[in-house]
């Protein structure tokens, strides 16, 4: 009655395995985003941290104001955004030891004001230029000290030495609110 006759082992046909794997492979290939996320890294000051103010001499302070009409006011003078980097570099490094610019790079403070109506794009361009001024100065210092350009992957001690000589100080004041008044 019960058939104990041995059947031949049924082999699973694996030839379609490659097709299935290909299908999944193509799906993940398409959904993978190779897009690298990049941005300007900023460290916000802790809340209620006003220790910097009141001790800074006016010659060590570069005030930069961006208004809602994409205009830039640096130390009371209106300049185009393309000149901001050169002005900031001259202010921080002060190669001619002028009386009205910063005493030393580690004393320099850039004070960035903006309005609540300022466009984010404009604000970021200004921030970018200021950061570019600092990174160019770091680069110059690194080349003269270590003979190589400043880079995020260089030894921490060297990077720290450079950052101590020219610290990145941008103070951001509370924005004005002219836009909503009008």
């Amino acid at each position, binding site marked *: 009655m019960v058939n104990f006759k041995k059947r031949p082992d049924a082999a699973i046909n*694996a030839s379609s395995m490659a097709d299935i794997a290909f299908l999944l*492979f193509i799906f993940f290939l398409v959904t993978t985003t190779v897009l690298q*996320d*990049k941005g300007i890294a900023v460290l916000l000051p*802790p809340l209620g941290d006003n220790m910097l103010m009141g001790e800074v001499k006016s010659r060590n302070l570069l005030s930069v104001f961006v208004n809602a009409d994409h205009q830039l006011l640096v130390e009371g003078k209106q300049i185009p955004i393309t000149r901001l980097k050169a002005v900031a570099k001259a202010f921080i490094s002060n190669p001619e030891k002028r009386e009205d610019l910063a005493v030393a790079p580690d004393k320099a403070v850039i004070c960035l004001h903006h309005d*609540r109506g*300022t*466009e*984010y794009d404009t604000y*970021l361009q200004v921030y970018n230029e200021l950061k570019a001024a600092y990174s160019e100065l770091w680069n110059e210092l690194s080349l003269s000290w270590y003979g190589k350009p400043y880079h995020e992957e260089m030894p921490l001690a060297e990077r720290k030495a450079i950052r101590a000589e020219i610290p990145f100080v941008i103070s951001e004041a509370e924005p004005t609110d002219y836009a909503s008044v009008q």
Partner: protein
Amino acid sequence: MAKFSKKRGKGTPAISTASLPDIIFMLLFFFMVATVMRDASLKINVNTPVATELTKIKDKSLVNNIYIGKPVAQYQNLYGTSPILQLGDKCVRKDAIEREIPLFLEQHKLKVPESRHPMIYSSIKADGKVTMGIIQDLKTALRKANQLKINYSAKPRAEG
């Protein structure tokens, strides 16, 4: 010597495709691991500005994304036309920023091991056309929540 001069069968032997599934599976697993699915679809228009001084975002699991922009046409009757925030899949109006940001940050922190909490940063993906008012409100809320490491997302400027 006779050993080496043995005649083989004529014609090229067929290449065995038996290992093909294994190779494809290997590639498949690589892409499966490397894939990061986009966490939410965007309900707002975000066109980030261009900049030059950019740093790469290394570990995506440490980042919480905050999008700012105007709602797309489909959602304009629901959220209006003024810029709003999007946290995950949640849209937040300007007056609710103060309340929603700490909640959002806490929810993200749960997914990150505690030893790595100090390395968490917020990536602000804002449209170039929004005004600084909403961004200032966001910055104040982040400072109140003690989330000080931020990153203004931007596109690299094409050289030349």
